[in-house]
């Protein structure tokens, strides 16, 4: 039986996803959306391909709403609680449905994780988060299916088999990666996916089928995309305040005192309403940053903002996030990078994976983490040929691992027991 609050949360998620779906149908005709959807399924999904340009903004929104709805349905069917982790997963899937995740390329990964759970003698419920976030490797399937030059049927077989194999590997690697950074990088599957994708990219390169880099970037997004986030953020804040303004604001302030290290389910530890306020505030702040630096509010940027909003229920809040963003900005200014260029802009949004570093070790550590993150993320995409969508999660995980290693070494190498 679902608790009343969880039922309401499901209702809110249904309304949001239906709203995005209908918004997509409003800006493009159904026929055009259908054609755009087909185009999105077969178009390279590697970083960085903005589906709002590939199939049109309407088709991209419909694609994102469908893949996110699949994630939500999987949560409901598995009878897993809709709370911070699952809400963040659904928001992240929606965001990446605008630039990489498709109906076609997410399913084999989930099947792979189901098989992995069976091999380990676990229930799928125990692995569901890895399945949902594991769709980061969706582009691997699209690449194998449509970019290797194989005839259609063999290409499909290789794509599905590759996706299932990646899904089978995900849980074992994810748990080891988690221990490496000890929960200080929120997008752990980004590190996991990047690690697995290194091997995938190596195999593709060895077989001579490695695709070249691509950049499809919508530099003229419509008003719908530009104003989607403030509307959503306002809805989230209003939904939060419906639970009683005084208590909700108090819960939000309580969230600001948490370090945010994985796994910090704000919805469970504090309240759903306080978390919704935090999500709305993070939405306004990240959107405001993009507008302030003159960035394009297109598919990838919305992906970054939606991921930030989702994880505002599962680890990040303004207080542990700002130092990391300041670190990214400092690195950009030092190295003469344009803050509105695709790389730095996405790094400033996705660097929030490192928010727990600032939350646990203070703002100086957060700034250092953000600085290192920007330098790393500009390199890591090429390593895996862009088939790991959470490239910032990969770079963030590596950065967190380095920082954890140094801090742990420093603390443990000092004499603690007098001789």
């Amino acid at each position, binding site marked *: 039986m679902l608790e009343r609050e969880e039922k309401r949360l499901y209702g809110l998620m249904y309304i949001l996803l239906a709203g995005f779906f209908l918004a997509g149908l409003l800006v493009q005709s159904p026929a055009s959306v259908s054609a755009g959807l087909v185009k999105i399924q077969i178009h390279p999904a590697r970083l960085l391909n903005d589906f709002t340009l590939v199939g049109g903004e309407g088709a991209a929104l419909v694609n994102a709403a469908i893949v996110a709805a699949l994630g939500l349905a999987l949560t409901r069917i598995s009878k897993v609680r809709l709370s911070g982790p699952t809400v963040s997963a659904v928001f992240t899937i929606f965001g990446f449905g605008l630039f990489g995740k498709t109906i076609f390329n997410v399913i084999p990964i989930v099947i792979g994780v189901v098989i992995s759970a069976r091999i380990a003698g676990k229930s799928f419920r125990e692995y569901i988060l890895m399945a949902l976030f594991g769709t980061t490797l969706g582009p691997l399937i699209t690449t194998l299916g449509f970019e290797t030059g194989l005839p259609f049927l063999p290409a499909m077989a290789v794509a599905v088999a590759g996706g299932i194999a990646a899904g089978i590997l995900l849980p074992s690697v994810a748990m080891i990666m988690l221990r490496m950074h*000890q929960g200080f990088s929120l997008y752990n599957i980004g590190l996991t996916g990047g690690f697995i994708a290194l091997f995938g990219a190596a195999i593709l390169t060895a077989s001579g089928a490695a695709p070249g880099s691509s950049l499809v970037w919508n530099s003229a997004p419509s008003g719908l995309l530009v104003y989607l986030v403030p509307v959503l953020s306002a809805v989230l804040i209003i939904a939060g305040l419906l639970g009683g303004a005084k208590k909700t604001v108090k819960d939000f302030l309580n969230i600001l005192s948490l370090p945010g290290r994985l796994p910090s389910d704000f919805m469970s530890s504090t309240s759903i309403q306080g978390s919704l306020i935090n999500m709305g505030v993070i939405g306004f702040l990240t959107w405001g940053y993009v507008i302030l630096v003159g960035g394009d509010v297109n598919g990838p940027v919305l992906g970054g903002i939606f991921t930030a909003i989702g994880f505002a229920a599962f680890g990040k809040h303004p207080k542990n996030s700002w130092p990391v963003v300041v670190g990214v900005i400092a690195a950009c200014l030092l190295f003469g990078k344009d803050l509105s260029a695709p790389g730095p802009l996405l790094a400033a949004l996705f660097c929030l994976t490192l928010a727990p570093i600032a939350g646990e070790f203070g703002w100086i550590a957060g700034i250092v983490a953000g600085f290192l993150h920007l330098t790393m993320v500009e390199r890591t995409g090429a390593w895996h040929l862009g088939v790991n969508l959470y490239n910032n999660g990969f770079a963030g995980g590596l950065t967190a691992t380095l920082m954890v290693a140094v801090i742990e070494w420093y603390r443990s190498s000092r004499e603690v027991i007098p001789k």
Partner: protein
Amino acid sequence: MKRKRTDFILHLISEVAHFVLDADPSRMVISLHQEEDGLHLAIFDDRPRKPEELESIRKSLEHQERPELAGYYGSMAGYDSLGSARLNLVGWQIKAATVSDTGSGTQIDLWLGGERFDPEQFTLGNKNT
């Protein structure tokens, strides 16, 4: 399978011991009683805690049906070396927990086992003994 069980117990002990040691006690005792279908882990220290502290420990260890967290993030239990101990990582993986004031310190009892497991069968922690 035995190795898996040993690893699991070691990590639970490590996380709870981490929590107890964070409070800087001068004495800590760990007691383990195993049965085929379950086990009882008891950790004692000599650090008296306020009722609200005990309540906070109880809340962290309170058994919650969160398989999605236990199966993934629960694997971090006992591995952390930085930051404070996190009893909720343990709470997702146990069947029951009791936290009590012994007068001279705190006792944390953890009960683990399958559906058939009955903590009352244990002599340790049984009120009749």
